[in-house]
């Protein structure tokens, strides 16, 4: 397991989360894991700007941003540039997702950090990046 966590060390991860408390917590946790965090960004436009400025190994995207915004545009942009991402969502229903993202990886709020780590290992580590 330790070796697994080591695989996460040094990854550049973009955090998109509008709630400050949650963003801050996620940020702290990833740093403790040795990741290099980009963001957190509270808005889609801000997130896209950050993603363009820095090479990324992955992104954690809160689906619902404030004032009706979603992070689907960010996801589309990242997909186009082959950056892996994981949605963080409070929703249970597939119908809220556009068809293209229905099969994308997602984890539910409130976050179970174990689930988070497993998702990151699975999708962000180089060994797990065949697509």
């Amino acid at each position, binding site marked *: 397991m330790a070796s697994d966590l080591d695989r996460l060390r040094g990854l550049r991860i973009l955090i998109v989360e*509008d*709630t*400050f*408390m949650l*963003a*801050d917590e996620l940020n702290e946790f990833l740093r403790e894991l040795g990741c290099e965090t980009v963001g*957190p960004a*509270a*808005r889609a*436009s801000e997130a896209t700007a950050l993603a363009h400025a820095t090479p990324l190994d992955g992104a954690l995207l809160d689906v619902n941003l*404030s*004032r009706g*915004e979603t992070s689907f545009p960010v996801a589309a942009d990242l997909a186009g540039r082959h950056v892996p991402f994981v949605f963080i969502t409070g929703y249970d229903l597939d119908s809220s997702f556009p068809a293209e993202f229905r099969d994308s990886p997602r984890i539910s709020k409130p976050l179970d950090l174990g689930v988070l780590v497993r998702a990151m290992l699975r999708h962000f580590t180089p060994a797990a990046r065949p697509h």
Partner: protein
Amino acid sequence: MPKRHEDGEKRRDFPVVGIGASAGGIPALKRFFSSAPPDGNIAFVVVMHLAPGRESVLGDIVGRFSPLPTDVVDGETAVEPGHVYVIPPDAALTLEDGHLLTARPGSGVGPRGPVDGFLASLAADRGENAACVILSGTGSDGTQGLRAIKEHGGLALAQEAAEYDGMMRSAVATGLVDFVLPAEEMAGKLHDYFGHLRETAPRKDGDGLRREVASHLPAICALLRARTGHDFSEYKDSTIIRRIQRRMQVLQRETPEAYLERLKTEPREIDLLFHDLLIGVTSFFRDPLAFEALDREVITPLMENVGPDTAIRVWVPGCSTGEEAYSIAMLLHERLSPERKRPVIQIFASDIDERGLEVGRLGRYPASIAEQVSERRLKRFFVREDGTFRVVGELRESILFSTHDLLRDPPFSKLDLISCRNLLIYMTSELQDRVIPLFNYALRGEGYLFLGSSENVTRHTRLFTTVDKAHRIFRRRPEMRSRLPEFPLSTHAPRLTPQPARPRPEPPDGSLQRLAERQLLDRFGPAHAVVNANGDVLHISAKTGKYLELPAGTPDNNLVGMARPGLRLDLRGAIHRAAASGETVLQNEISVGTNGGRQMIDLVVQPLRRDGKEDATFLVVFRDRGGLQTDDDFPHQTLDDGEATTVQHLEHELRTMTERLQTTTEELESSNEELKSANEELSSINEELQSSNEELETSKEELSSMNEELQTVNAELSARVEELSRANSDIQNLLESTQVATVFLDRDLCVKKFTPAAKELFFLVESDEGRPIGHLRARFKADTLQDDAEQVLRRLAPIERTVEGLDSGRRYAMRILPYRTVADRISGVVITFVDISRITEAEARIQELTDSLKDRVVSLETLLDLVPVGVFIMSGDAPEQAALNRAAARLLGRDDGTPTPRMLSSELPLHTAGVTMPRASQPLLRAAHTREPVPAFEAELHREDGKSIDVIVTATPLASARGKPPGAIAAMVDITERRQAEVHQQMLLDELQHRAKNILATVTALARKTGGETAAAEEATAALVGRLQAMARTHELLSRDLWRGVPLEELVRVTLDPYLGKAEDEIAIAGPAVVVDPKASSILGMVFYELASNAAQYGALGPRHGRLAVGWSVESRDGRRWLSLAWRETLAEPLPAPEARGFGTTFIERSLSYELSGRASLAFEADGLSCVLEFPLDPPEDS
């Protein structure tokens, strides 16, 4: 002379002025009357051309500017001096016996020539107390009347510079107008003229003549003779005096002396008087009955008996302007037979008035002669020229106009007819007695004499027989031949007839002696002659026959040549000697051979002395010596023989004388007889004359009124003709321009007329007019045309058919109608063709469009039934009913199968809040009424099955065709399901709130249970619980307001609530009402909790005590609203700054910037915390 009425005398003594006017007359009348002195002695009668059948305001107009009382004549009106009378419309006005009479023209007679008519009656009624005024007007009305006025001695005025000068020019052209004046000067002139007339009235005798003028007649006649060469001394005194009086009147000369003076100084006045004397009214066929008689009795036999190469010779003395001569010429020409060779027609028309002859020679007469000359004659003998009639050349060439004085110049001779009408009436009977034998002389064989109606030859039955007594046609007795009298015919010359001369006053003193000497000479003196030195005879006495005889060969005037045998030598010698010596030469005992013997004479030739001077003239005196000796006994004459011869001679002479006496006595007796019978006849004729004169007057009046009527009718006719020709040209243009092919047929169905467009339907050329319609080839199928036309003629009902052109493929609507004249008589049929090809096409197109429209309507209706929205349509025509579609029916709970149209009252069964919707709020009616859309609103619909559903209704007005009230359309959607969904959603929301609160409460409880072992843990738990509770409070507020936002002040107060009770006066909260959105509310709720818990622990709300002020404001920045909130704590005692930043501080600063794009600044100052929060209330525009 006009007839007189005793009761009329009194009314007759004031003058009446007839004023004639037409176009432009009103302003002229205004000028006339506005300057008229209010003369109470004159009556004015205004005669104007008025439109018939129209109310006239002429009376009012004249009354306005006339200073005299003005009346419109109505029925019989006695004329009063000092009044103005105005003709009523549509009437003929005449003056008779001092009364104005109106005659309403019968039906069919329109406008008249009323001026002439009135003036004629005025002249007859008033004589010299009449005047006429011709004002502005077109045409020639008034001219004939003016002649009448002048003929009766009245005054004639014409307007100078008249606006329309037709009437005035026509009047002036007669040469009879006395004054041409501007309208405003006329009244004054009339006033002066009649004033003068009044003054001179007492000087007149019963016949209105001034006797003192008579004494100056010879002088005036002498002046006239000297200037004009015409002798008027034998004319009737009364005629001449009347004319002289009139001239005096016009010139306002008081006395004949003054007038004579004027004549002497102003030769032109002699001319004027001369022309006045010559005024004669003449016209074509004057007295038509007489001309008919002339035609019958004279012209016809003359022309029948005439030889081919002979000439018909006619003399018209005193022809004036030639009308009479032309009338006779017309009669003659009418009788010219085309079969026979034409005789030469010679008419001598003579007069002393050169002006009149000029008119005759020109042969141009005013249009008004149309009333005298029949239309047939006008057509044959005249040509129209500039509104006048001109005699055709044929007629003109047969007349010779010449200046000729009947009394001065020898007559024409060998005449077949003399027409001398109304000339003798001006002559004294003595003069007449010499003129009539003159006519006898001039006529040949049984020539005819045609006289005027008041003239006669009864004193000369010896010379003429009567052919037609009534019409004064006489025939010469061929056996009686008058000798040519000497000229001039005057009483000063030897008499032609045996009647004794009227005794003339003999010149006084020395003349008596001369007369005695003259008689002595004639009776007792020897025969003598006066000759010049050559022996030419200058004068010769009576009884020279014994000594002189006319030689054979060309006669000359030489005394020597005329001398009988035996005398010639001595005579020549004696004259010669006397001429040479200047002494008297005496030659005794010359034997002259005379008829039946010889005569012994003494010859004396004595030079004549005149005023003591030699005159180269010689008196030759033949003095008998003894009696006549016969040739036989001349040489053997003895004394005894001589005595016996003398006795024998005397006896012989006595016998002869006795015989002569016997003859003379017989002649005398027979002539006495004749005279007696003539006298009787004369007196009877005189009687007759009187009565026929009366008759004549009447018939003359009748005639002139008839003339008036004729003229009027003619004027109207020509106006009609003009109108007609205008209408005709209008019709012509209409026919030419119309696109409607029209063919007019007469009763026989022959083509009368057709429009150019008709050539499209028939093979028609202009010459086809008159051809039967059946003969025309039609360009369409015309099988029934003939029958149709006949049927229309029979039944008078129009027939309409559609026909198709044979080659053009066009379609026409053919209508056959009866042709109705204006008088509603059927005189044929009219066939019209209207090209309806385009109409037919258009109809087809309309049908197509209608079908397509129907299809569309059907699809629209289907669509309407398919839409799931209830639709109600109310038309503006029937606002009480609304149609509804299937969805609406379903909404109402009706069966789907209800057949269309589904109808419903336009008051829909709607309820709001359980109350039936009032009519004013009904959506359909409201939209139609306000013409504004009705915004959507919710209501309950009571269905027909008793249930009720929630609906949203909206309505909008329907545009309608112009002028129609608008309709409306309403849409209705069932929102019952949505309502239920909303209710469900609310329920879910409530559930969610409840769950969220429960979760928070559970978490709080768990936190409390988890902590509690150590003091630090207890503190941490308390902090956690406090924060959870703050979150729960904010959540509560948000869910109360359905997550729409929270008022800022409430948010502050809820957070500070636990402390407010303790130290209320220490806490001040102030700021404008601001609602903060849910996200900002959650953040601010946490921020306020952190600030409050910090203050409770270390600051103003804690044990240190102090005051807290929370204030905020909203300002605009970059187009967004920014909230700026200050949290200011003021502590009583100073506080040391905290060493490290706690969670709260970090949270406040970071969350504000991270989540709200705002700023937070915290300052821990000595007297307390100061925190300023700023963030935008509105989302960024680019989001």
